[in-house]
């Protein structure tokens, strides 16, 4: 399996660098422009979650792009976004509902994971004391 890794410092706008590299890898396997774009947005969300919530000492995010399927017949991309931060319990995160969010005084935040799930074909999140690993797949 072809693998590309990218390590980024947790700094403002670095999610855009991650997103552009995701775009390059998507183009490499001839993914459609729209699917690449969906994947880019999911990458941005996973990165900013790591930046904002991980509290990782190293202040770095590691991304791995793995081509699924054969080299000459790629089926899609598996993207892993890993931080070595404090972790969280994905099962306890409440699903955001816009109607509720629109009430006065309620935080409007909390959409990242929902967007990631909505834009990718498969998402798996492992999180614990060693940090968080989001594995997400997009078929071509």
């Amino acid at each position, binding site marked *: 399996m072809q693998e590309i890794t990218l390590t980024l410092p947790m700094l403002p706008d670095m999610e855009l660098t991650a997103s552009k590299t995701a775009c390059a890898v998507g183009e490499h396997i001839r993914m459609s422009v729209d699917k690449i774009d969906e994947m880019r947005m999911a990458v941005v969300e996973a990165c900013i979650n790591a930046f904002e919530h991980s509290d990782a000492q190293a202040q770095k995010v590691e991304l791995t792009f793995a081509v699924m399927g054969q080299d000459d017949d790629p089926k899609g991309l598996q993207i892993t976004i890993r931080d070595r931060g404090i972790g969280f319990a994905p099962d306890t995160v409440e699903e955001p509902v816009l109607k509720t969010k629109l009430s006065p005084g309620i935080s409007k*935040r909390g*959409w990242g994971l929902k967007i990631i799930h909505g834009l990718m074909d498969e998402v798996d999140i492992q999180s614990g004391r060693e940090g968080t690993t989001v594995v997400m797949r997009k078929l071509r």
Partner: protein
Amino acid sequence: MSESLKLNVDRRDGLAIVYTDGYINNQGGEEIAKVAYGLIDEGHKNLLLNLQGTKIVNSIGISILIEIIEKMIEIEGTLAFCCLTPTIDKTFHIMGLAQYAGIYADEPTAISEFTGSA
């Protein structure tokens, strides 16, 4: 080194159109909110955000747009969007935004909808 969002406003009869150019992240969202609240203060109740120049948004930026929607509901105004990329359109639908804000393919359609309902 933040890529800052550029904004342009076109004030029309009964409608203000805000054109965005760039990344809508937290700062970008704040910029839009500042302009939107300014327009509300001027008396505008119908706002159209033309996202033609925005190829990328993030959920923090969108959460600020939700604040604007909340404000519009409060003042019985309307916020609408047009010219979204397919991914931004999909994201807005995933979030259920289409129930609280008009989402139009292009500006003429959006404007005629506003004018029709005004």
